[in-house]
């Protein structure tokens, strides 16, 4: 089956490991990804400046998806997933804004379609492919790995929009990790935010949030942290050193995207999954996944 995909900005501009591992793993479920052409930002930073412009950008994503003729749109970024989902809600509920944006999209020859279904990597794999479907393709179970998950904020809140998982007790990512044969742990800081959105205004506080969470995770003696959002990946993996400096602690926690972990269980070459691009000490984790 064909599925349209909107990557957003952060994945396309720096979180290549996420993009590579999604592109490598999804075809194993007979899913062909169709990139949106001429895509722009989902509108997230613009939400703080001009709500209408942000909703226009987000509605444009759905209009571009409509242009592909496909019914399903994969949005692997948590922020984009939220912004596009909220705009969809506004387009439906607020007639005035809906008409205005529909008109603006026409200027570019685009047509908004409310029926495009929005998926994230987590619910697509958990609910559409299904845990059994995931288990079926596993070639090498990741036995012996003890992992923590960080599901992120914006795919689980707010529930009125219809989100990917429960707002207070998200389980899907844990279940997906378990489906690969690894063990997951529950921990008190599970719902703590990575801080990425503060990078616009208060980077030190953003690093402090990320560093505090990584410190707590290190005390759990887990083999690594699993994320599924490019913002969380940026903060916990790419910026782990900055976070360590800010909180004044020695941080060395392997952080991987779920699709990278999935790829390992599917016996896809590490380099194709972008595992050489992670900035956190992933070799610690990889050495436990014998080839």
């Amino acid at each position, binding site marked *: 089956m064909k599925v349209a995909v909107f990557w957003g900005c952060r994945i396309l501009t720096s979180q290549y490991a996420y993009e590579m591992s999604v592109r490598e793993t999804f075809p194993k479920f007979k899913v062909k990804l169709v990139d949106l052409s*001429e*895509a722009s*930002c989902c509108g997230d930073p*613009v939400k703080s400046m001009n709500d209408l412009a942000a909703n226009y950008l987000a509605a444009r994503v759905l209009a571009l998806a409509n242009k592909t003729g496909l019914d399903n749109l994969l949005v692997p970024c948590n922020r984009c997933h939220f912004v596009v989902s909220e705009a969809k809600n506004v387009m439906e509920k607020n007639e005035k804004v809906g008409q205005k944006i529909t008109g603006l999209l026409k200027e570019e020859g685009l047509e908004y379609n409310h029926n495009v279904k929005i998926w994230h990597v987590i619910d697509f794999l958990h609910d559409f492919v299904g845990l059994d479907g995931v288990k079926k393709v596993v070639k090498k179970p990741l036995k012996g790995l003890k992992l923590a998950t960080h599901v992120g*904020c914006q795919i689980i809140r707010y529930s009125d929009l219809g989100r990917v998982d429960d707002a207070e007790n998200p389980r899907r990512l844990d279940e997906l990790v378990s489906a690969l044969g690894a063990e997951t742990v529950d921990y008190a800081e599970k719902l703590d935010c990575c*801080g990425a959105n*503060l990078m616009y*205004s*208060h980077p030190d506080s953003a690093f402090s949030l990320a560093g505090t969470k990584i410190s707590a995770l290190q005390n759990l003696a887990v083999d690594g942290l699993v994320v599924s959002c490019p913002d969380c990946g940026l903060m916990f993996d790419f910026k782990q050193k900055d976070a360590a400096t800010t909180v004044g602690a020695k941080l060395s926690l392997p952080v991987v995207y779920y699709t990278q972990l999935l790829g390992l269980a599917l016996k896809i070459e590490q380099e194709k999954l972008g595992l050489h691009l992670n*900035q956190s000490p992933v070799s610690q984790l990889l050495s436990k996944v014998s080839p």
Partner: protein
Amino acid sequence: MSLTDLMSMAKPNLELREKFLARLSGRELVNCFQCIKCTSGCTALKLLELKPHEIVKLVNLGFVDELASSDIIWTCVTCLKCLQRCPQKASPYHVIMALRNLAVEREVKVPEGYLKAVSQILESGLAEAVQKVVTKKMETFDRESLKLPKIVSPKESFQAVFMKIMEEKQQ
């Protein structure tokens, strides 16, 4: 200036309050009974002293102008916990976003990161510039060397529409 100082020094502007509440249609701001569920779970409370319940209260009291000029509205992490947990559907998150929009319209200082994102969108469609990644082994990679597809940017007609909306005043 702390928010407490605002309460003691400023005078409420009820007319502006009405206009502001109209922007938040569907959000039952006046129903807020200060249960403080929002603040008790706020990610930005610990580090940046953001107290969402105070913001909602101050809007209800008519201190919209003062809030729009305050730095405090730019400390929200947008984790959405306040909105999720609000029993009265007041949504401090949406109140803070609307205050930020107001600050932008009034050309009050806006953190540079946001301005940069908008100029980047005008330039390439994306809010961020494409980066090269240096690995731990000091090898440099970009999209091309990673064999990732080329990014096809939006045409100029997009920039024109986006610019037009950004310049338009919101009601």
